[in-house]
């Protein structure tokens, strides 16, 4: 193996290249830069493909990094003064600039409306479609929530309770020492027995750790979303005994923490009171600002043991860059980031909204929430 130290010009450019990559979000720290410089000393620098493949191997760590890498490699290669063949250009998807669809039931009434009408039923349609109570059949599972009568919303709590029972008893795969447990902790027992000349007087046990997942729900309650927000919150609160902690936030243009109001069983009453407190506001949704406010205000709620659910249709009137950055920050700390979008239920929907486009790269699970089937499907995502 021959190692030739890289010359100064090459070294300088390599470091610049790594810095450029780092600015674009790649994991190219000084230690990667050192590896890159060493790699360049080990390969054939006249071979463009080999240089490209080598540096890509050192400086990227996921396929999503490749487009950025390819782009910046181009200028790196050019600065080294080597001839460059044109590379294929990565196609960019067109972004939709369409207007936000109007609400299914009511216009832009927002947070105040949501809080006032919390749990008050959604059957304000002139002719509510009546269906048998135990809606467990295939067709009911597929029926959109917006077509549900108030009595049928009861079914949601039932689904939640059923799932809660299953979630409650998922032990972790890891063990912890305990006074009593299923298995003898041999390592500890043996260590303790040494005091007694190797006689087992007291046994140490171990048992499965309990999973302690936290659930953070951030709900969009602007006009088009309040129906789904109500359903999700109702569902989540049916589950709250299965989690170590459930935290709830609602937002439209600003973020509100409503955990305390929902905790006790009289939350409907509490919400009414809250509804009158809420300052007046109108207009669009600021998802990015709200998520950023959450990151800033409650950073300790989110760690690797937390599942974060954001419920929104992605119609953000703020800057998509801000949303992207806020979500990236959230994703970095959260165990799992789930985005529920009720519009995903309609087959024609394409997540082309600018806000949604900015959000997608940071989301672990992008799922729908528009009928009972999607609610049941949520169960598996709640397990960390």
């Amino acid at each position, binding site marked *: 193996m021959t190692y030739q130290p890289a010359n100064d010009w090459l070294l300088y450019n390599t470091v610049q290249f790594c810095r450029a990559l780092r600015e674009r979000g790649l*994991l190219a720290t000084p*230690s990667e830069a050192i590896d890159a410089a060493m790699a360049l000393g080990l390969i*054939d620098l006249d071979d463009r493909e080999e240089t490209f493949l080598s540096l890509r191997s050192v400086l*990227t760590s996921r396929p999503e990094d490749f487009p950025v890498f390819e782009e910046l490699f181009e200028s790196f290669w050019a600065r080294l003064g080597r001839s460059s063949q044109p590379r294929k250009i990565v196609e960019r998807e067109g972004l939709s600039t369409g207007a936000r669809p109007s609400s299914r039931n009511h216009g832009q009434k927002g947070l105040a409306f949501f809080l006032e009408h919390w749990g008050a039923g959604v059957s304000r349609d002139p002719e509510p479609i009546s269906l048998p109570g135990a809606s467990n059949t295939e067709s009911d599972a597929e029926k959109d929530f917006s077509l549900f009568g108030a009595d049928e919303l009861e079914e949601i709590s039932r689904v939640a309770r059923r799932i809660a029972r299953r979630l409650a008893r998922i032990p972790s795969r*890891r063990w912890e020492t305990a006074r009593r447990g299923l298995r003898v902790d041999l390592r500890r027992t*043996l260590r303790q027995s040494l005091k007694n000349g190797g006689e087992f007087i007291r046994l140490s046990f171990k048992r499965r750790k309990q999973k302690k997942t936290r659930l953070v729900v951030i709900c969009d309650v602007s006009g088009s979303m309040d129906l789904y927000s109500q359903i999700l919150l109702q569902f989540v609160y049916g589950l709250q005994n299965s989690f170590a902690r459930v935290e709830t936030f609602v937002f439209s243009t600003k973020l509100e923490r409503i955990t305390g109001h929902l905790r006790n069983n009289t939350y409907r009453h509490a919400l009414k009171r809250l509804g009158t407190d809420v300052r007046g506001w109108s207009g669009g949704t600021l998802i990015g600002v709200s998520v950023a406010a959450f990151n800033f205000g409650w950073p300790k709620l989110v760690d690797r043991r937390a599942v974060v659910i954001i419920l929104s249709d992605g119609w953000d009137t703020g800057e998509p860059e801000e949303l992207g950055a806020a979500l990236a920050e959230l994703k970095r700390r959260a165990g799992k980031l789930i985005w529920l979008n009720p519009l995903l239920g309609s087959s024609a929907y394409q997540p082309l909204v600018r806000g949604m486009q900015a959000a997608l790269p940071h989301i672990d699970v992008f799922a729908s929430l528009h009928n009972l089937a999607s609610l049941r499907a949520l169960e598996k995502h709640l397990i960390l």
Partner: protein
Amino acid sequence: MREEVRNIQELLRRQAYVSDAAVATSLYLAMALGKPLLIEGPAGVGKTEIAKSLADALDARLVRLQCYEGLDATTAIYEWNYPKQLLRIKLQEHASASAAEKEAEIFSEPFLLKRPLLEAITDQTSSPVLLIDEIDRSDEEFEAFLLEILSDFQVTIPEIGPIKATHRPYVVLTSNRSRELSDALRRRCLYLWINYPSFQKELEIVRAKVPAIGEALSTEVTRMIQAVRKLNLAKTPGVAETLDWASALVVLNASQLDEEVITETAGCFLKDEADLRKFEAELSAGRLGL
């Protein structure tokens, strides 16, 4: 292209592993820089196969650690041999050694059960290939155990202290991306992404791995699989499935593909009922270029 890179490509070819420049370059760098190689890609594209072929090519021992959720230090790194420790305590009951001496003795290397990771770094004769397979199946706590081994090639046992590798293993990690790996782990590895092979490459692989298959049949099989991959199925067949199917066709003495043979053997490369139905519909509609 560098001589060494070409050599690796040639060595792998002799193990009937058809590689390309990306694979060979990454392997070369991983070996030259002494860094682990993290290989990601869809299921069945031959990620694990790289490590096996590398071991064969280098004539090195392959130490394999299959990851699963809840995998912990006692199954992956080391465990104390409790029965042996107990026996020793009993035997020495009346010995004059002090308690501290007895303790030091039973917590020493002869009482250690080596699990794959410790096994890989204590090989006394030569560098083995350490394959940490499907790392994404393990949980994040386990990744933390790996960090020391991956960066310093050593294991620290509280009772003994650090054990350093006598011969640095060549480490290959594979992941199906079922979850995101931590940045700490990614940073310690070189990265290689493998996708489904092109028609030409897959044809080469089929001919190398299933030599009994005729030229015409191998072309048909490869073309069919390439078409199936475009169908947007729940479980897209990987190269492993192509090879299974090719071997099955050889066993059945099929000389060419027709609808009947395909329907009978589709289970070799489609492992999902809905996929099978979709495939059969496409097949009978003649949209798969048969």
